[in-house]
């Protein structure tokens, strides 16, 4: 589109794109590194409880959130670290929350499965599968009522397709043309069960039956996730109603960090194949390098910077104090 005669303009669109894709890459690396450290904290018995790792699915959270504004809403899931980070949460306060510390996003009261950061539009992770479908749809209703052009994104896994709430709220979202996008991260497994054993029929026709625009895409290609979401967000902002986006993806780890022996429900070969041939970080890196938009050293530099940020953040979380016991009955009521 840019003519050669305009080459004296300060930045060519490709340059803008490169900056954006490097940012996207950085966000995905941040999630990957964060989850590696979260796993380490579990294995070293430093973290109380369990956590559900997002590694492998980074392109979905980052691709979607990159298409949103800060004031747009998201609701997240038990596997929610990626969504929080992608929407703008900072690593140190997240580690503090994972470790039950006062400095955490929820002052240590929420933990891994309940991180909420309304300042970045994150209305909270939710430990009830599909439990936030109402909240996301209600946030969209609220945006419409207040006359803002905010959009709400509801992240959920394909396991939530078994929950009735989702269908109730999709029905109302379509009736009332609400600016909500239902992002179904199909990572193939409902906890320890392949989704084909739990889901009859197909996925997108469920949404289409409500008159909701629905698409299925490769959730490992962050550029595709971004471009698709951008289109759906613009549509929603224009008042054209909800959309449903199924992203085919894969979680590298088990259902949670303690789910280590999992060959009874999926093979090591399958895991290896996804890691080697469909890794979202690698896919983007290869595209950027092959297209000569950047070179490997730039990506390595990003990786090193992020690793150092994540290590610092983890140390911050470890060093942070626990909440005072007097806080146990604070904030029960507003």
């Amino acid at each position, binding site marked *: 589109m840019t003519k050669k005669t305009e080459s004296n303009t300060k930045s060519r669109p490709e340059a803008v794109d490169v900056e954006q894709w490097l940012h996207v890459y950085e966000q995905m690396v941040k999630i990957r590194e964060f989850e590696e450290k979260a796993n380490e904290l579990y294995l070293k018995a430093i973290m109380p409880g369990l956590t559900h790792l997002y590694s492998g699915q980074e392109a979905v959270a980052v691709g979607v959130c990159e298409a949103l504004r800060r004031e747009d809403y998201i609701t997240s899931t038990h596997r929610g670290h990626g969504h929080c980070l992608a929407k703008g949460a900072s690593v140190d306060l997240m580690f503090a929350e994972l470790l039950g510390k006062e400095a955490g996003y929820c002052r240590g009261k929420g933990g891994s499965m309940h991180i909420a950061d309304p300042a970045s539009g994150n209305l*909270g992770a939710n430990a009830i599968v599909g439990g936030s479908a109402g909240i996301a749809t209600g946030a969209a209703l609220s945006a419409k009522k207040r006359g803002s052009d905010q959009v709400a994104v509801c992240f959920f896994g394909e396991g939530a397709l078994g929950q009735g*709430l989702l269908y109730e709220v999709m*029905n*109302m979202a379509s009736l009332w043309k609400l600016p909500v996008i239902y992002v179904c991260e199909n990572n193939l497994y409902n906890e320890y069960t392949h989704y084909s054993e739990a889901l009859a029929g197909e996925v997108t026709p469920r949404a289409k039956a409500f008159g909701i625009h629905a698409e299925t895409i490769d959730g490992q290609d962050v550029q595709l996730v971004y471009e698709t979401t951008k289109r759906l967000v613009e549509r929603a902002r224009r008042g054209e109603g909800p959309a449903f986006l199924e992203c085919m993806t894969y979680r590298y780890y088990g259902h949670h960090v303690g789910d280590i022996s999992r060959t009874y429900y999926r093979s090591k070969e399958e895991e290896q194949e996804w890691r080697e041939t469909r890794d979202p970080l690698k896919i983007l890196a290869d595209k950027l390098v092959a297209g000569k938009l950047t070179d490997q050293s730039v990506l390595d530099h990003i990786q090193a910077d992020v690793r150092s940020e994540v290590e610092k953040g983890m140390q911050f979380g470890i060093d942070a104090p626990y909440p005072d016991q007097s806080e146990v009955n604070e904030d*029960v*009521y*507003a």
Partner: protein
Amino acid sequence: MSTPERELTFAEAVREALAEEMRRDPNVFIMGEDVAEAGTPFKVLSGLVEEFGKERVMDTPISEPGFTGIGVGAAVTGMRPVIDIMFGDFLTLTMDQIVNQAAKIHYMSGGKMKAPIVFRTTMGATRRSAAQHSQSLQAWVSHVPGLKVVMPSTPYDAKGLLKTAIRDDNPVVFIEDKMMFKMKGFVPAEEYTIPFGVADIKRRGEDITLVATSSMVQVALGAAEKLSQIGISAEVIDPRTTSPLDKQTFINSAKKTSRAIVIDEGYEAYGVTAELASVIADGAFYYLDAPVKRMGAMDVPIPFSPALEDLTVPTEETVFEMAKSLCGRN
């Protein structure tokens, strides 16, 4: 007051509270099944859609969990929804959204989020509506930290408490007795609200304390009148909200009278009566001349046949008999 004494029905008082709050605050809206033109099956909301339009009096599909959840989402993003759950029995359908979502969101977020939302619902048997439209499930919601629970017993209380509920920054379950909608009572034309956690002494007495909620307040007042005819002076106390609970008012009353009966239309087992009785037993133990008695619904699914249904809830007669016997009179 210069205005002549004004009487409204319970339903009119509820409607007036909603209308006043909707005029006062554009963020307040109503959502539920058949709330607009139909005004609910009980006609409590009749006329509101004409004044406020369908955007603020929103009819929903028959999807209780769905519209309850949507209400929670609207509440955490700046609105003040009033969710209409037609029959209290349908609370069971909405439990995840009320209990796991609305009630916990403030605490789980370390105080960063809040859900100012009212769940208006109903309770009460003897309407010949059988087992799935007659329960009084206040104990279920009173059990949950993070919820407030309101049980008005007069038109005056209904209006003042509902206005407070709508202005509260927490999720509030507001339970109305279906059998009281036509009951008339004094409601001033002037603006007023009633704070939560303040019990009301509905009748003063010296010999026995009757702590009663919602539908059971009239029953207790009727029993007190009968008791007065045999020389027993009963004090009737209405907690008005089970959460927060004004413990001190009825502990003080029990200390004064030395005898207490707690009456609530919910099931007796593990019910509101159990909680209130334990509060009295704990707070007034050394002053009591008799064990604290509890009267709730019989622990059976509410039967349809009038011959059976009427046996399941406390009445003026059964309360009168219990009080008489507790006072050592036969």
